[in-house]
């Protein structure tokens, strides 16, 4: 048998379908990649495997009954999903939130950010081949936060904790100590995590200059969250919109320089440190006692079937750990929303996947996807 010599070597593009069952796609997500050798020349994301008609379901339900469903959008950050939805409804109906509840909300949102970012970094490293060690370190810390969520809201992940005009329940006794412990120990964990990863040459060579997202593209594609900031755009809704009581806290917005995978990873590490800072301030400033649900909110939550917000529309948005999470509600004055729309950060951030992957190796497509930080529950809704 003679070996084929170069001119007769037949080459053609190869189409590879990654997923929907592939472990590196973080859920049921499919990428149809066209490869030239190992280089990606085309990549088509295919989504919708987890579509569960979230928006339509919400339009058939009273406002409050949809709160537990929002938990299931981005199931890692159920607290922030609740937060955005509660904000939208409060805007719609003009419900005020008492002081203590505001602090509780911010506390939960920032803890959720810690959960999300540490988990994401763990899984990103998993995609890089650091088989589960970083994930388990992250899980270990996340566990403490989830224990706190369980003590407060009753559930580890599907918290269903926010209510219109406040939160569901006050902290149980000793829960505050739990938070203090988390806040005290978290920087130590971050240091350890950094020792474990930051100097790692493999990590650097795999991540740096890979999947670069230019500033202009990021803005044009309405990318939000850490991904946008990694590209060097200073846009954080906590600063830009100052919803809830974020104007009372002193924190910085970390920015990346190149917008590659490494920046996206590192921006998140820095964000966690800022979150810890916010949590420290929350613990210091939070009033000892106080209402957790305003009178108007109580009305809305006591008999959800009967409660009717005034006709109109409202858009509530927050800086969720993944980006701008917004809920758009149109009310016709009936107990159910006339139109309910979610602006999911994962989904919109995912739209640039092809641009990031073209020209990269197929193995890098996996970490680029990992660095975008998607949760399929939110992408497909």
């Amino acid at each position, binding site marked *: 048998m003679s070996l084929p010599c170069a001119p007769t070597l037949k080459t053609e593009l190869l189409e590879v379908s990654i997923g929907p069952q592939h472990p590196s796609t973080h859920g049921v997500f499919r990428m149809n990649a066209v490869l030239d050798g190992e280089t990606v020349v085309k990549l088509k994301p295919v989504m919708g495997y987890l579509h569960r008609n979230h928006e339509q379901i919400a339009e058939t339900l009273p406002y409050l009954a949809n709160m537990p469903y929002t938990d*299931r959008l981005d199931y890692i950050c159920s607290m922030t999903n609740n937060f955005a939805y509660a904000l939208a409804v409060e805007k719609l109906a003009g419900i005020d939130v008492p002081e203590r509840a505001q602090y509780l909300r911010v506390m939960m949102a920032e803890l959720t950010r810690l959960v999300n970012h540490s988990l994401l970094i763990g899984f990103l490293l998993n995609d890089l081949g650091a088989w589960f060690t970083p994930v388990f370190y992250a899980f270990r810390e996340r566990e403490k936060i989830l224990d706190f969520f*369980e003590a407060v809201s009753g*559930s580890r992940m*599907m918290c269903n904790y926010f209510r219109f005009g406040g939160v569901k329940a006050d902290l*149980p006794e000793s829960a505050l100590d739990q938070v203090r412990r988390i806040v005290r120990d978290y920087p130590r964990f971050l240091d350890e995590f950094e020792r474990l990863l930051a100097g790692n040459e493999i990590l650097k060579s795999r991540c740096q200059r890979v999947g670069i997202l230019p500033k202009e593209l990021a803005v044009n594609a309405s990318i939000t969250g850490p991904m946008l900031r990694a590209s060097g755009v200073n846009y954080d809704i906590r600063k830009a919109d100052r919803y809830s009581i974020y104007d009372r806290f002193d924190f910085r917005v970390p920015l990346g320089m190149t917008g590659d995978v490494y920046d996206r990873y590192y921006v998140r590490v820095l964000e966690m440190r800022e979150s810890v800072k916010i949590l420290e301030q929350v613990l210091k400033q939070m009033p000892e006692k106080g209402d957790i649900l305003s009178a108007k909110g109580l009305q809305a939550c006591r008999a959800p079937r009967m409660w009717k917000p005034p006709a109109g529309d409202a858009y509530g948005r927050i800086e969720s750990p993944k980006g701008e999470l917004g809920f758009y509600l149109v009310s016709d004055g009936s107990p159910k929303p006339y139109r309910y729309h979610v602006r999911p950060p994962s989904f919109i951030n995912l739209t640039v996947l092809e641009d990031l992957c073209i020209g990269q190796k197929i193995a890098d497509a996996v970490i680029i996807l990992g660095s975008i930080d998607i949760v399929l529950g939110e992408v497909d809704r």
Partner: protein
Amino acid sequence: MFGWGVLKGMLVTLWNFLLTYLWPKKGIFTVQYPEKKLPLAQRYRNFPFLVYDGTPHMIRCVACKICESECPPKCIYIIPEKDAEGRVQKKPAVFDIDYAICMNCGLCEEVCPFDSIFMDHEYEISKYNRAEDLMVRKEALLKPWEYFAKIRPHDFERIEAKRAAKSAKAKPVAPAEKPSQKPDAGPTSPQQGSVPKNG
């Protein structure tokens, strides 16, 4: 030096590895689950159950159907009891909850005005059959009020106080029968055994 960063990372894993031997309390975070179980938070919620006072005939639920209509995935099904003349009684004849659909949101507990449905701590509920076994009927849902006191003492106290205040206001003669917390443990335990367990 190239490779130093990797080595430094390895030292962290090595340290964590050693910690599991040197200082297990700090180094080991996992629990050998079926043998050992972590304590649950009092507010932990899993699936709803119905409470009765004293005997299982004294169901507290009045079949007002509020929870049925508030439940987001509509997994509660109630038919009120009717007496011989067909008048609707304040008692459910049928009270089914489809555990396969229930999403543990706890809204039923929040909206029930009669404090009769609560979220349980039972989590080992795996079954062989989704359609029949997870459709939990009234008999299996019923659990004594003392059971609630055991799993959620804080809420128990709060609700007892609320109910006492309410019944004192409504009719001062008939106070809500108040199960004393500890002495009852003897007589209630056989009852608890006779209740079909969901687990």
